[in-house]
């Protein structure tokens, strides 16, 4: 209630005119007249509050500082320190005080003398200063204030003597003179040259900020001078966790200018690129009127949060910053730059944005390598030449996006999927060589439009100053892009086609086959209408449609289309063309999945052969063709040659891409599957599967179709290859069950997995339960538990026919398991869900699940609501799903309330 009043009060204050305020109050009054009355009273009081409560406040912010300075005082005007006589106090700060002083010998001159306040280890400070002194003496630059001397006062405080510079801080000077952007840049370039000079002499400033860049007038010409070189280093010394913050605050002032690496505990790690960062902050403030991060906010956030922000938060582009300022503030900033807000923002957009952001890169290797490189880029900008700093690439921005939204589901590999997206966007250039110039230019224009769409529209959603959206997933990002696409490029079908092709590819890589299909189909139609049936892009789009159909298990359609595309490509480009090889390779894959061995062999063999002759065949196409060819060789009895193909394919992928690239992961899967099929090198196969599974999970998560496929492959390897490890097999199967909905959505991957999980056992003796044949075998191979031991010993069967014995036992003890209508599995991971799911029924029976274990419960369908007292629930509990976890498997029989029926009692 009161909070609402407060907000309303502020809202009214924000309204510019009395009329607007009155209207607002009327609206409030309509709902709540009393509230209106209270608000009006508040506003009245606000108007005439005058200096109510304020007359007691100290006149300036430095009241506290003065008190502290007084307590720290000792030296003052008139005091003599070494060869210097203090004349007047010219500056004060957290570090101490600066005096104008007079030097009498060897020359008579006025100097600036900075006395550091108590609290520093004087010996260390002067020691570090002495060490640096030689280097400092080498600096000789008109825009650097020379450091002349240093030492300790009689009272034991360190001091430094510098060339006396009487001027204003750079930012203030520019504001007071209302310098335009160009003049500001020119001054800044001079500052860069000074910093460059120092860097060449091996001196890093470490504390560049406006108050350390003073501007004085010589003959009416503004001359910036960088002061305090060498002093930050002397003061910094060994920063510890306890002191780093305070010292920055107290001695070095503003954290807004601190580079990410300087926030590290071992802050001595600063190098010349830390100065580049600070120059970037300075430039940012010169251009927009404020640094990228607000010092006060950083300080109020606390040490860890401050560090985190400096290291992780991406600065808002200068032009964006201007646009998001309150109108009044923007007016002020623009006025001080002798221009209008809109004009200023457009001046900064583009080059200057990128130049500033390049200085502010978190990773210093990405910043300008030197201050002169920065200066040169600025000079280029002033001369209207292209600058080296550029809009960050799509993949680069994606990387940033992933960092920003790391709490969401964006994974590193989603980024990888996007990387492939850019490959599509730029693939127009690969074919330039054999296309006419004009066509090439057209392609370039389309590629640029596509790139712009992703850069501007897609990332605008998630980028910029907006709060990170923890819910944002790659899928969500793509869906938004798809939405924005609708009707956007009605006049540019080629652009829309390219964007859709790219989107489809990304969806496909993420395992979202249905969405991929719909984008690819639209792309294919658009391409055909705009470019004709035979055009490369039309063919590519149609071939993509075939891929999506194959993944969705529409095999016949996929095959028909793949054959047609190959025929068209052959007709248009001949056989010896990278595009034709691509379609051959893709057709081979379709035929392999369809088990059309002759056609699979024929096409894959041709693709592999052509790839050696035709330049420009993509690695992906060759690797896929080699997979199919290798498997075909294996099936026709040429096992060694087949293995050779698959090994080479893996080598190729590793060499040309990298070990974690999705294609390499697929190559591992293919080779391992080959070993499995031929029952050779099983330990190698296991190793390959596990490695691939780990990489795939890390990149695409547990639910990606390829992840599921790899897990399935690993499960059947554990189940069917010596040494059989049933617990591991079952454990992986349980994991697969978790993703049943995903399996349903990607039938091609799912088919064998679902078969495994739901096949009825082939032999008559086993009960027709939902447990698959494999499942039964696994059950049979379980280490005997107490109850099983007892029962089987009674029957005397255990040693003779263990599998059948156990199956029989199972049927005897769980008669309802014969009922086909039985609810097959309730899969529970961990204990929390278990209780919720079973609503306490089984828990009441005294069964507790173990955290971290996986549980499968078998029970009749009605059990969920009303479990009968004579019902039994079978719980299979498994641990050890992940490599390295000790594998363990237990089967529990849970009699439900055998002693007392709760409903009876």
């Amino acid at each position, binding site marked *: 209630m009161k909070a609402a009043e407060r907000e309303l009060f502020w809202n009214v204050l924000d309204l510019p005119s009395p009329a607007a305020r009155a209207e607002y109050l009327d609206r409030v009054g309509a709902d709540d007249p009393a509230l209106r009355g209270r608000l009006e009273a508040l506003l009245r009081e606000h108007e005439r509050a005058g*200096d109510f409560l304020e007359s007691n406040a*100290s006149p300036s912010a430095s009241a506290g500082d003065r008190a502290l300075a007084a307590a720290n005082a000792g030296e003052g005007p008139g005091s003599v320190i070494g060869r210097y006589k203090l004349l007047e106090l010219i500056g004060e700060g957290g570090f101490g005080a600066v005096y104008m002083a007079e030097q009498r010998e060897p020359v008579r001159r006025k100097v600036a003398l900075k006395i550091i306040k108590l609290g520093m280890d004087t010996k260390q400070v002067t020691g570090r200063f002495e060490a640096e002194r030689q280097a400092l003496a080498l600096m000789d630059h008109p825009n650097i204030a020379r450091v002349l001397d240093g030492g300790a006062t009689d009272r034991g405080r360190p001091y430094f003597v510098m060339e006396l510079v009487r001027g204003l801080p750079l930012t203030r000077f520019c504001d007071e003179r209302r310098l335009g952007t160009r003049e500001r840049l020119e001054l800044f370039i001079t500052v860069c040259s000074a910093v460059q000079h120092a860097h060449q002499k091996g001196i890093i400033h470490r504390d560049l900020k406006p108050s350390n860049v003073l501007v004085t007038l010589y003959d009416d010409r503004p001359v910036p001078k960088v002061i305090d070189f060498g002093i930050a280093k002397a003061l910094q010394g060994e920063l510890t966790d306890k002191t780093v913050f305070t010292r920055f605050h107290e001695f070095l002032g503003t954290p807004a200018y601190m580079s990410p690496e300087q926030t590290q505990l071992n802050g001595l790690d600063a190098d010349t690129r830390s100065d580049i960062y600070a120059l970037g902050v300075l430039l940012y403030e010169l251009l927009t009127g404020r640094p990228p991060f607000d010092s006060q906010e950083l300080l109020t956030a606390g040490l860890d949060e401050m560090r985190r922000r400096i290291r992780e938060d991406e600065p808002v582009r200068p032009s964006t910053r201007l646009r998001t300022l309150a109108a009044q503030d923007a007016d002020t900033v623009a006025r001080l730059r002798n221009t209008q807000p809109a004009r200023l923002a457009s001046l900064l957009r583009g080059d200057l944005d990128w130049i500033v952001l390049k200085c502010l890169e978190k990773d210093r290797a990405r910043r300008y390598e030197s201050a002169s490189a920065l200066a040169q880029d600025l000079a280029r900008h002033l001369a209207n030449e292209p600058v080296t700093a550029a809009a960050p690439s799509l993949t680069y921005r994606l990387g940033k996006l992933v960092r920003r939204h790391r709490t969401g589901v964006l994974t590193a590999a989603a980024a990888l999927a996007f990387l492939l997206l850019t490959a599509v966007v730029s693939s127009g250039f690969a074919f330039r060589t054999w296309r006419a110039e004009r066509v090439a230019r057209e392609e370039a224009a389309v590629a640029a439009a596509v790139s712009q769409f992703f850069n501007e529209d897609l990332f605008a959603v998630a980028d910029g100053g907006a709060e990170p959206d923890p819910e944002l997933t790659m899928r969500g990002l793509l869906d938004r892009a798809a939405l924005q696409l609708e009707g956007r490029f009605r006049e540019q079908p080629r652009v829309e086609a390219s964007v859709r092709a790219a989107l489809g590819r990304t969806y496909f890589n993420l395992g979202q086959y249905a969405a991929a299909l719909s984008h690819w189909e639209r792309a294919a139609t658009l391409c055909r209408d705009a470019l004709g049936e035979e055009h490369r892009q039309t063919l590519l789009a149609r071939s993509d449609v075939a891929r999506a159909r194959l993944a969705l298990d529409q095999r016949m359609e996929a095959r028909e289309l793949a054959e047609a595309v190959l025929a068209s490509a052959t007709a248009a480009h001949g056989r010896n063309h990278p595009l034709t090889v691509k379609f051959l390779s893709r057709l081979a894959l379709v035929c392999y999945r369809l088990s059309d061995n002759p056609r699979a062999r024929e096409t894959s063999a041709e693709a592999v052969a052509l790839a050696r002759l035709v330049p420009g065949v993509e690695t992906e196409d060759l690797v896929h063709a080699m997979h199919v060819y290798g498997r075909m060789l294996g099936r026709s009895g040429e096992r060694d040659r087949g293995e050779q193909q698959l090994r080479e394919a893996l080598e190729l992928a590793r060499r040309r891409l990298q070990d974690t690239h999705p294609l390499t992961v697929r190559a591992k899967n293919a080779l391992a599957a080959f070993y499995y099929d031929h029952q050779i090198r099983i330990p190698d196969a296991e190793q390959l599967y596990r490695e691939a599974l780990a990489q795939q999970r890390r990149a695409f998560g547990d639910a990606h179709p390829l992840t599921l496929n790899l897990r399935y492959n690993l499960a059947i390897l554990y189940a069917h290859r010596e040494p059989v490890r049933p617990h591991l097999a079952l454990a992986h199967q349980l994991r697969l069950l978790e993703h049943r909905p995903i399996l349903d959505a990607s039938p091609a991957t799912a088919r064998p997995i679902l078969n495994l999980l739901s096949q009825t056992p082939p032999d008559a003796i086993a009960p027709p339960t939902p447990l698959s044949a494999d499942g039964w075998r696994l059950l049979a191979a379980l280490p005997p538990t107490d109850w099983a031991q007892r029962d089987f010993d009674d029957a005397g069967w255990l040693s003779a026919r263990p599998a059948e014995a156990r199956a029989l036992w199972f049927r005897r003890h769980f008669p309802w398991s014969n009922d086909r209508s039985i609810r097959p599995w309730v899969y529970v991971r961990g204990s929390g869900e278990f209780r919720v799911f079973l609503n306490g029924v089984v828990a009441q029976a005294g069964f507790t699940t173990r955290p971290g274990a996986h549980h499968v419960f078998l029970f009749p369908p009605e059990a969920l609501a009303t479990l009968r007292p004579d019902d039994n629930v079978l719980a299979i509990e498994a641990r050890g799903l992940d490599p390295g976890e000790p594998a363990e498997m237990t089967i529990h029989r849970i009699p439900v309330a055998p002693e007392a029926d709760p409903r009876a009692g």
Partner: protein
Amino acid sequence: MYSGAMSEVTRLLNAIQDGDPKAADELVPLVYSELRALAAARLARETPGQTLQATALVHEAYLRLVGGGPQEWNSRGHFFSAAAEAMRRILIENARRKRSQKRGGNFERVDWSEVRLAIETDDDRLLALDEGLERLESEEPQAAALVKLRFFVGLTGQEAAQALGLPERSATRLWAYARAWLLRELQTSL
């Protein structure tokens, strides 16, 4: 004696930093007695009724109790909050005492619209303000804390914002609201 109080204050500041809510309550009396001692010494030397050096007083107390050495920055903010509360108590106590000596209870009506309050304004007004402040505290604790820091310690808007860990702009708005709220409150309650 001070070294004992000093380490205790530092300990409490660290405890507040670590989120111990009780530590703030324990800190106030310590700061209170220090401020009293300092104020008494000051007042003895200077003209009676002189309270304008609240800021200097608090800073001095800070130096004596915490010392000039490196500190986590916001320990100073916590200290100021405690000092503001202590300062308020001292002044109110003082005003009450003086009033009871002078009059032993009086219902003189004060026209607040005419008042430009400073700390040296008369005690009745100070006490009325304090009552308003108490009500504000129950409604809007942060606004009340801001008033205490600015009025009783004499911090500037910027310093007070920092002590409270607020962006300056938010503090400015809160300040406008607090002042209007108090004035309205005082109008209606007197």
